[in-house]
């Protein structure tokens, strides 16, 4: 991947359109190599955040050279760890004045390279901003700093019977700031929605250091929905330093069913039939045989039969009084669709084993295959059977095994393409296969990413989905926020002129995420 700026190409009318020549002159600029020396930079950062919160020694910078996407590591100039909004703003202002590129980083679990300092950025790490600032149970709101770990928020409010709904599998380590930036999803998003449906307001540091408040704690945003644009912007529009989220009362009761199917088709039909029956389960997850084999070798042994093609994990929640009925309906629908065995969890221990088995799946694949790429395409859920068949065909043709572990309820696939990078040419083949899978997703009316983001990894695949005008409109928004192109440039949106030639050596492995649930 090159370090060229995506801002290089703007529509020809741009200069005439923009009344402010200085701004458009800047937006046409590359992220400039600044004349500022490393010593000046470090000294300035230390002045703002204190010496102990600046990392600049080369050997300590290595761990920040990539996130969960390990293919294109790149060293940051320095890492700065501010502890409050004012410090973030001061750091950004200084970097902006000195034309030094920078990017925000949370826990670094992103799977598409959003936190990789492609341009030698200064990394602004939010890990020291991890406080729960306030919580208002009466009105169902919590205000957090961006570095607060997703699951920690729920842990802090669970005593009173509340939780934070979006639950990415990485929730025990990823941050709410990172979730905001990626518009993270999770298993229970089928019923409860993704991150964008749960963040209502934020304090946001623009790439020139100005601090603005976006969204509103209650009711609707007044004026353009800036918050809506910021959520999912992958750290390219600025830095969220305070985030107001909706919290929910825990459901009164939960029931979880495990359903095993001889044929994938029957499992897929079950998914559609449940939703067709007017039930929106909290979650419907699917695993195929390859994934089952892998997780059964992990610590979370369920003992799946080796001759079934698919297993569904279905969870319904709500008021206890009606849940028996809903669970009964789910079981009935499974039976109508030729389920071999379906069982409702008899205890919390059983339910939790099933969930662990599902959530550890990425890691488990990492143990049975030397390397894997995880893709994140979304398809209309009625196309599940067709697309899974096409993925199986692609696997067959390429000779690379593909395991499937995914959010079936909303059609969000996670094909795990297994390969061995030590075999010459296999990495490239795996990448090609990944791209082919995304092509299939777009062909049936879907998208290239449902929750992991575009980052560096899928920037060229954006063209599968969007035309030049669509991409230009997105680039124009980046210009509005980030005219100097200093904040996390070169990601998310392909630049108009760039050709596809640089797709070299890109892969995602589970290695970096060792110890993280997946």
């Amino acid at each position, binding site marked *: 991947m090159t370090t060229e700026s995506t801002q290089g190409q703007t529509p020809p*009318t741009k200069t005439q*359109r923009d*009344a402010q020549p200085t701004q458009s002159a800047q937006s046409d600029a590359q992220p400039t190599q600044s004349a500022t020396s490393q010593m000046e930079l470090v000294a300035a950062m230390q002045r703002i955040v204190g010496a102990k919160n600046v990392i600049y020694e080369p050997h300590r910078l290595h761990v920040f050279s990539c996130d969960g996407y390990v293919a294109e590591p790149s060293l940051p100039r320095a890492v700065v760890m501010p502890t409050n909004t004012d410090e973030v703003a001061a750091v950004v202002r200084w970097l902006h004045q000195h034309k030094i590129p920078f990017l925000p980083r949370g826990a670094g679990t992103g799977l598409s390279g959003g936190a990789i300092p492609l341009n030698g950025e200064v990394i602004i790490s939010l890990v020291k901003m991890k406080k729960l600032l306030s919580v*208002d*149970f*009466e*009105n*169902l709101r919590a205000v957090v700093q961006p570095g607060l770990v997703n699951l920690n928020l729920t842990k802090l409010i669970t005593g009173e019977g509340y939780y934070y709904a979006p639950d990415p599998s990485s929730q025990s380590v990823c941050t709410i700031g990172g979730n905001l930036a990626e518009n993270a*999803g999770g298993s229970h*998003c089928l019923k409860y929605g993704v991150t*964008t449906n749960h963040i209502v307001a934020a304090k946001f540091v623009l790439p020139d250091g*100005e*601090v*603005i*408040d976006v969204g*509103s*704690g*209650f*009711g*609707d945003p*007044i*004026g*353009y*929905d*800036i918050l*809506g644009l910021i959520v*999912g912007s992958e750290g390219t529009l600025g830095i969220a330093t305070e985030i107001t989220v909706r919290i929910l*009362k825990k459901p009164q009761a939960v029931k979880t069913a495990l359903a095993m199917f001889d044929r994938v088709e029957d499992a897929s039909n079950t998914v559609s039939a449940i*939703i*067709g029956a*007017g039930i*929106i389960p909290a979650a419907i997850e699917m695993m195929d045989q390859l994934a089952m084999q892998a997780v059964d070798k992990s610590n979370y042994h369920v003992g799946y039969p080796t001759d079934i093609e698919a297993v569904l994990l279905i969870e319904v929640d*709500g*008021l*206890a*009084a*009606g*849940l*028996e009925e809903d669970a009964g309906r789910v079981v009935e629908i499974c039976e109508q669709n030729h389920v071999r065995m379906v069982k409702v969890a008899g205890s919390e221990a059983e339910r939790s084993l099933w969930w662990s088995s599902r959530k550890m799946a990425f890691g488990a694949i990492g143990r049975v295959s030397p390397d894997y790429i995880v893709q994140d395409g979304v398809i209309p*859920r009625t196309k599940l059977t067709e697309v899974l068949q096409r993925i199986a065909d692609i696997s067959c043709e390429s000779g690379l095994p593909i395991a499937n572990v995914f959010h079936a309820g*909303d*059609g*969000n696939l996670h094909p795990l393409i297994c390969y061995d990078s030590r075999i010459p040419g296999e990495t490239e083949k795996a990448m090609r296969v990944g791209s082919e899978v995304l092509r299939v997703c777009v062909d049936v009316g*879907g*998208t*290239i*990413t*449902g*929750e*992991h983001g*575009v980052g560096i990894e*899928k920037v060229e695949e*954006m063209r599968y989905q*969007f035309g030049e005008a669509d*991409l230009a*409109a*997105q680039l*124009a*928004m980046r210009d*509005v926020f980030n005219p100097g192109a200093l904040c996390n440039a070169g990601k998310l949106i392909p630049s108009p002129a760039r050709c596809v030639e640089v797709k070299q050596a890109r892969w995602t492995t589970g290695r970096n995420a060792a110890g993280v649930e997946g």
Partner: protein
Amino acid sequence: METEIPNFAPNDALSSLSEICGIEAVRLIEHGGDILQTNQVDPVVFVTPHDEDEVVEIIRMAHASRWKVSVIGAGTQLASGAPSDRIHVVMGMERLNQVVEFAPADLVVTVQPGVTMEALQAVLAAEGKMLPLDPWLAPNATIGGIAATAASGPRRALYGTVRDMAIGLRVVYPDGTLVRTGGKVVKNVAGYDMTKLFIGSAGTLGVMTELTFKLRPLPLHRETVLLSGTREQIAAVQARLTSSVLIAARAEAMNLTTDVTTDVTTDVSREAADAAWVLAVDCDENESSARYQRDELKTWADEEGTDFTYLSNVDADAWWEATKGSVLDAGVVLRIAGRPSDWEKLARHVTAFAAETGLQIKQTWGVTVGVGRIFIGGPRQQPHEPDTPDSAFTHRVSGLLLELRQMASELGGSAIIERASTEIRTAVDPFGITGGATVLFERIKREIDPKGVLSPGSYAGGI
């Protein structure tokens, strides 16, 4: 933005536009304010394109000719926002009224903007689905208008608002470029979430020509519990509701009887108005859950001393329709947002105001989400009636808005005008926003619409 074009010749515009859409789709309106619901005396050309290609052509022509264009949906409810600069062309979306694609099993629908809410819900209901939006407006309001104003209703308590449901758009930009945002699947994080930018932008950034929404199943069982009593009693129930595990699909506290407030004896009328509150709590879960929820609410009703009754399915639907219908003719609608726990304080202020001024005021508060609406006055002006200035009324309503805005902002909320006469919308800022984000609004408008083609001056912050 730009200054007035010196010599706009309506008849030339009319003939150019008729070359695009045919003569039957173009019409001169001598007094522009009639259709725009503003004081504009200059004429406008009213054009109703047949398809997206014509929309593109019209906008291109407007861009090249420096015309200012306003988009209208049903065209009945433009009395919101600040009165915009002088408009030359009004584009009505009524002919773009097709359901483009409906995939019931995928819970996704794609429609043209001129489809009315009523028509869409009927199509969806035939397959057991719904778009869970129930804004306080007439059933002939268009999807385009609803999306462009982010209109919401009681159902937001469980289902959220348009921004949570819209997943993709086709938008004609002010220079005629067609831009696609989002997609047609329920989960999608590819690129910026551009869809959000157009939802609620009141037609100032682009013309939406196609909208894709995610849907919900039509609840198999619907039940509305009605508790009636004083505002304090209702507030006590609301507090219990928000901290409970109950699942309220709607939770609306309403004070919709106005006759008492016109009484001259202030204390009596205030008391009567205070006593005439209803809390409507919906359950969209299955029948057993609904029964549990109903029993729980009944217990609270008994403990707090409110009356209790409930309605199911079509009866509940009819009750909501009638309730909605009873406020549609209000000339002024204010929308207040704030902490749910503060609604009672704000509502009390409104009741006192009504008693003091003798104005007909109805109010409704989504008590779990903290969004309230104040409906003032009787039958609103018809589009073709000239604005009848009533400065005392204007003064009072503006005063109330400013008071509520002050109170709400102290409590972390906001107050805006959703609907009012031009006079009122000129007397006070309908949105009342301040702060750093306005700078971004301007930059966004300037980036997308540098020539100010679309409804310039009408939006938050005078954009």
